[in-house]
């Protein structure tokens, strides 16, 4: 019995469709706020399994067949790191959360004074180190396809290159759909993580299934298997000390430094407590996945024909035994291993590329105006998508150019060695306050150069200029510069040789650079923040000087975080300061937290630069430097107490200032109130009296009579309206109001109110999203309509755009709904925003007749009675009002 190639393709496609479905459901659940089960510690643990790529799934058996027990070092290293989470991982995760780190490049850049040079360096290193690895995954998928085709009927000839291309394209699609769906402030991707977790289960299950089959199905039991192992050529292998230690160290370091591992370990981490569960659960996963590697290798060597590729034993043993369904399961396991690695790596790399390369270039080319006016969010998403495509294309090209020849494990170790060049900067940055930017740059550059010279470029052979002559005689004929025997120390394994030299020289350059340079204030501040993250993980950065308009910052933040999130953030910040509305005081504290919030989307360096452009100076204040200088716990304690007091004082002062301003404004208004009422009543009465006297005393033509009685009538109506409004407001303010609560559909309410407000098409263009409005809710419909009519007729009256537009946006927020009314006029100046809801607060340049400025005051009272709010929403371009209303009206008023 043979297995058709097409059936295999169909299975793979069905599996991919299933993954899409899983990711989609997870995203939906997360969007509905049911993300708790998505974020269990076990999902976190399973997502860490992106460490186990196709290199593990297929390559580990091949590795064991060639070098025996050596393969376990690749899994023992990470085991030690995660069991020792109390040392490093706990700190990294805390820093990642406190500083809202988006990638390993962001962490390094942020630690060393938000230096974008470092961000770019680490990004380049990551791209160069990861591309071969992606190529490796593509190769493994194509090889597994080919393995099936070769045992099949041979009719379907597999085109390896086009298979690789399709796989790369499919992975790019998946990653773009679920990796750049939104610019989540925390850079978390629920859909991706869930799919990765599912794939983790599939690959473990597949490998264990093959292992069980091999041990009990082929060998015939444990003792037979043990005998087979001891008889196979694996038994002849010996443990070279340098390799055993070197590879364990290498895999441990790579576990922390690989961009994809950093992504799942730190960036996607939802809860620090998950690390403690992973500390035992992930080693268990690694143990299970390595458990059957040696038995499969040993049995494979004994039963498979000589010369068959041990890298594919996992697949070819079941096939040779006629176990087609097991082989398909195994194929899916390998497929899962390859795809999960590629997806996470592509996300991690695209975040780095867009945050550290594309955004800085774009920002500097646009100048400061872009921060406020340009659509940063859009640019960022496009940059991410293009980066994902580019990363996968690079991987594919590497696969094509390298010819897919070398043994799988070789590329893996070369890649690992490149990526771990970040280790000295990472560990130094986290544990040593004296580490500086200059040191980090020198270390990285030196380490990278040594790695390229001793390992990476030689892997290309003569095509990269590393022909036999150079390898044998060294650069320029200096034998101490032989790429694989620096300082004429020969006999070491090339990987261990490269690792040893690059790590030593990297670390030395890092330390010498750090000691001999002097850090900038920002670096020192960040250094203290990172190293002492458990003592005070509260603030970072530093802005003083210019007082930016809160509104400018809000406008900018909306571009990056999206309108909703930015508004919520500003509103919460204002409330924390004891203020109402959407514009908080621009305190250093507020700027710190805003920068961190933005950093979660665009990286620390970019966020710092963007805020810097608006705020002006980006010097570090004396107060900030105090935090650096405060070496002792007592000083920290003292300053934090002072800080708490000063925060309290600032808050009280801000509240008092607001209250005072309001009182002054109110008392002026109270004074003006009587004369206002007098004025509003006397004006129509003047016309009425004058014309009635004219009518009484004079002989008038019929036309004139009609005209003047008409004026009297209109003015009498105006008077009535005014009295109605006054009484209405009086009733509302005294709370003696009966609400007529009923159920209605918001869409209908809006329809009705819009036509009642005279918002015809030729007067005002209305933009609505009717699907969002279509839901029932319970409130006093007539009162709500009154509010909407008031807002809309104000727009009709006051919107000064050439073609007035009104956008109505409805959003659900749990138990309440918000309705935004945003027009395209010039809006209301900030000085007036606070008073428009007060009585008689007509704007100074009104062109109105017949409006006494009571409308918005009445609206505010009504919304209060309905258990909701009406607020002015600044920074929307035009005048904007937001109504917030509970969906089920609780009878507050009564």
């Amino acid at each position, binding site marked *: 019995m043979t297995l058709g190639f097409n059936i295999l393709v169909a299975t793979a496609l069905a599996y991919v469709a299933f993954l899409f479905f899983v990711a989609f459901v997870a995203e939906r659940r997360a969007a509905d706020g049911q993300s708790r089960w998505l974020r269990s510690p076990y999902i976190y643990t399973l997502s860490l399994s992106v460490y186990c790529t196709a290199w593990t799934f297929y390559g580990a058996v091949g590795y064991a067949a060639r070098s025996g*027990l050596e393969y376990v070092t690749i899994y023992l290293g990470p085991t030690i790191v995660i*069991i020792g989470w109390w040392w490093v991982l706990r700190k990294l995760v805390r820093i990642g959360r406190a500083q809202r780190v988006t990638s390993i490049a962001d962490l390094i850049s942020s630690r060393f004074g938000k230096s974008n040079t470092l961000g770019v360096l680490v990004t380049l290193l990551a791209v160069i180190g990861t591309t071969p690895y992606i190529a490796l995954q593509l190769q493994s998928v194509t090889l597994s396809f080919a393995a099936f085709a070769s045992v099949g009927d041979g009719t379907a000839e597999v085109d390896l290159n086009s298979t690789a291309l399709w796989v790369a394209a499919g992975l790019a699609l998946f990653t773009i759909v679920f990796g750049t769906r939104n610019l989540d402030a925390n850079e978390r991707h629920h859909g991706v993580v869930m799919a990765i977790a599912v794939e983790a289960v599939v690959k473990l299950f597949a490998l264990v299934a093959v292992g069980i089959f091999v041990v009990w199905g082929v060998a015939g039991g444990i003792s037979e298997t043990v005998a087979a192992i001891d008889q196979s050529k694996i038994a002849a292998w010996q*443990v070279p000390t340098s390799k055993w230690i070197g590879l364990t160290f290498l895999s441990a370091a790579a576990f922390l430094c690989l961009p994809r591992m950093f992504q799942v370990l730190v960036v996607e981490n939802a809860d620090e407590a998950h690390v403690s569960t992973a500390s*035992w659960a992930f*080693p268990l996963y690694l*143990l299970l996945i390595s458990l059957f590697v040696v038995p499969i290798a040993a049995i494979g060597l004994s039963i498979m024909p000589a010369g068959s590729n041990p890298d594919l034993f996992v697949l070819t043993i079941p096939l040779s035994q006629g176990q087609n369904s097991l082989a398909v399961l195994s194929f899916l396991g390998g497929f899962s291993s390859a795809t999960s690695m590629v997806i996470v790596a592509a996300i991690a790399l695209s975040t780095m590329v867009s945050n550290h390369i594309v955004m800085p270039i774009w920002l500097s080319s646009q100048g400061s105006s872009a921060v406020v006016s340009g659509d940063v969010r859009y640019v960022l998403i496009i940059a991410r998508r293009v980066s994902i495509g580019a990363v996968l294309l690079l991987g594919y090209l590497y696969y094509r150019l390298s010819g897919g020849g070398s043994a799988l494990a070789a590329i893996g170790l070369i890649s690992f060695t490149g990526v771990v060049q970040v280790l000295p900067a990472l560990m130094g940055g986290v544990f040593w306050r004296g580490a500086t930017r200059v040191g980090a740059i020198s270390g990285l550059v030196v380490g990278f150069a040594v790695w390229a010279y001793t390992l990476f470029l030689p892997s290309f052979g003569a095509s990269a200029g590393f022909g036999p002559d150079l390898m044998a005689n060294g650069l320029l004929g200096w034998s101490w510069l032989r790429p694989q025997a620096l300082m004429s120390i020969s006999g070491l394994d090339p990987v261990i040789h490269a690792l040893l030299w690059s790590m030593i020289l990297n670390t030395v350059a890092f330390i010498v650079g750090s000691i001999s340079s002097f850090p900038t204030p920002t670096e020192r501040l960040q250094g203290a923040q990172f190293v002492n993250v458990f003592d005070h993980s509260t603030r970072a950065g530093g802005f003083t000087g210019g007082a930016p308009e809160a509104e400018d910052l809000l406008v900018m933040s909306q571009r990056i975080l999206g309108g909703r999130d930015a508004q919520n953030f500003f509103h919460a910040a204002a409330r924390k300061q004891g203020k109402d509305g959407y514009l908080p005081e621009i305190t250093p504290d507020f700027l710190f937290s805003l920068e961190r919030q933005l950093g979660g989307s665009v990286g620390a360096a970019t966020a710092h630069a963007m805020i810097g452009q608006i705020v002006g100076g980006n010097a570090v204040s004396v107060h900030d430097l105090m935090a650096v200088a405060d070496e002792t716990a007592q000083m920290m304690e003292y300053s934090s107490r002072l800080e708490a007091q000063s925060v309290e004082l600032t808050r009280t002062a801000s509240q008092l200032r607001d209250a005072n301003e309001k009182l002054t404004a109110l008392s002026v208004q109270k004074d003006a109130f009587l004369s206002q009422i007098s004025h509003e009543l006397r004006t129509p009465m003047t016309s009425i009296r004058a014309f009635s006297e004219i009518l009484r005393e004079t002989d008038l033509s019929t036309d004139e009579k009609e005209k003047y009685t008409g004026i009297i009538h209109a003015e009498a109506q105006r008077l009535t309206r005014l009295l109605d409004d006054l009484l209405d407001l009086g009733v509302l303010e005294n709370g003696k109001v009966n609400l007529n609560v009923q159920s209605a559909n918001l869409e209908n309410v809006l329809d009705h109110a819009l036509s009642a407000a005279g918002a015809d098409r030729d007067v005002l263009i209305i933009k609505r999203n009717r699907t969002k409005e279509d839901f029932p809710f319970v409130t006093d419909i007539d009162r709500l309509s009154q509010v909407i009519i008031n807002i809309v007729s104000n727009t009709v009256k006051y919107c000064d755009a050439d073609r007035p537009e009104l956008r109505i946006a409805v959003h659900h927020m749990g138990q309440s709904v918000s309705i935004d009314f945003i027009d395209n006029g010039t809006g209301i100046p900030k000085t007036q925003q606070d008073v428009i809801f007060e009585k008689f607060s007509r704007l100074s340049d009104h062109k109105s007749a017949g409006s006494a400025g009571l409308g918005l005051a009445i609206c505010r009272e009504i919304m209060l009675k309905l258990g909701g709010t009406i607020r002015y929403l600044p920074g929307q371009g035009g005048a904007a009002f937001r109504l917030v209303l509970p969906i089920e009206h609780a009878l507050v008023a009564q």
Partner: protein
Amino acid sequence: MDDDPKLPPVFLERASYRRRRLRDAARLWPVFGVILILFPLLWGQSGENARTTSGALAYIFGVWGVLICGALILARVLARPEKEERDQ
């Protein structure tokens, strides 16, 4: 006594003391693991200390299992909220 974590008190309550020693254990556990993992290097290839491949395999996975169990116990104990521990 230690309401304020920033000023370390001189004497700790029994529960806090126990907790600190557990943290020490969590820090030392991977060091212990490294030593166990390096052990096979002492066996040598031939002579009286030599092991069969299956024997070495059993040793490594055995060590692995022990490390996992230790980590499990430490994680469970350390994850327990501090309050609860004080009440005991």
